[in-house]
């Protein structure tokens, strides 16, 4: 039920992004891609936190923006210094992203199984087949 509104936010955001005539210069494409990766990581981290029931809105918001900015800045710095920090950022965020996704999947599966076993327990109790 509450998933609808974040999805709506995503769609509205996508529409806004496509409606805006501003075109990203090709030079900043690299930084933008890293920022997007960092943002995705933050979002999945947030979802994981919700599932783990340790969610904090402030941490998510600050993490979202600071991660994106820092990732872009670090990539820029790497470019200036001649070190490919780009790949480091991709690696770090990629690993975290997959880790987050795995955890989300894990929690989803766990909760699903929990619900099913509970339902089975409940059904068994109702039909008197539950032996204790």
């Amino acid at each position: 039920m509450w998933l609808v509104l974040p999805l709506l936010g995503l769609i509205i955001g996508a529409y806004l992004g496509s409606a805006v005539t501003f075109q990203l210069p090709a030079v900043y494409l690299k930084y933008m891609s890293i920022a997007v990766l960092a943002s995705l990581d933050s979002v999945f981290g947030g979802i994981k936190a919700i599932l783990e029931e340790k969610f904090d809105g402030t941490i998510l918001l600050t993490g979202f923006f600071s991660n994106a900015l820092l990732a872009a800045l670090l990539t820029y710095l790497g470019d200036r210094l001649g070190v490919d920090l780009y790949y480091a950022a991709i690696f770090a965020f990629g690993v975290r992203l997959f880790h987050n996704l795995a955890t989300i999947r894990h929690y989803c599966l766990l909760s699903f199984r929990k619900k099913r076993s509970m339902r089975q327990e409940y059904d068994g109790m109702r039909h008197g087949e539950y032996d204790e």
Partner: protein
Amino acid sequence: MNKPRWYLPITIVFLFLGIMLSLQFQAQTRYANDLTLQKTENLIAMVRGLSEKRQKLALEIIDLSNQLRSQLESSQDEQKLLESIQLETEKLEIVNGTVEHKGPGITVTIEDYMPIYYTDILNILNELWNAGAEAISINEHRVTSHTTISSVKINLNTERNPLSEDFYMPYITVNHRVVEYPIVMKAIGDPNNLEKALTFPGGIMDKLALFDTYPVITKMEELIIPADQSSHIHFFVSEYKPEEEEASKNNADSKKENNAKNTNAKNTNAKDSNTLRLEKTRTKLIPINPNKKP
């Protein structure tokens, strides 16, 4: 239902994520389509394809421009034709007297006391036509190919003695209307030519002078000759088809249907009907009023 506390931050985050993703998608798509990033082979193939397309288009341009030229030429030809037809129409209108005509010319005035006969008028007209007159009128009667010039003996003056010889005076008529004196003939054309045509030695003026007739010739800068007012009846020959012909045709048709296989019989039938038509064809004169426009 209680509002979860993650609702607002997640929505905000998703909103910004959406903006960033769509921007990135756009930029990436543009970047991927950039020519500088394409492979050399692809670029070569692209150049080849595009140059072929360009050649084809150039050929098409040549083809279409040729077409355009031919069309323009044909339209010019048509325009020329139209112009010449219009000129001809104007000429014919002047000749037929359907329009008013203006221009320099001469007037020939014949007074009451001058003895004249209608053939003299005809002679003068012919001389004028020969001298290149464009339009002639006699007392506001436009002279055309239909104009009748004749004379009639009538009594216009009732004071004369009915027993006298000159009780019935010959009057000149144009289009069956009596022309009153002075008879003024207007002719449009080169005034000098027209005058010379009438006054050359041994010409019409000299002949008329034998009868003490001296028509007055005046050169005019501007003459107006009115359009033909008289109504003419044109006679056209049209084919007259009697009703029996239709009947015979119907007969032949029914015969054809009956003897569909017998082609010889059909031919003879057709011949019969043909001869029949030729025999039965009559001509009838149907008067048509040209002034009545359909």
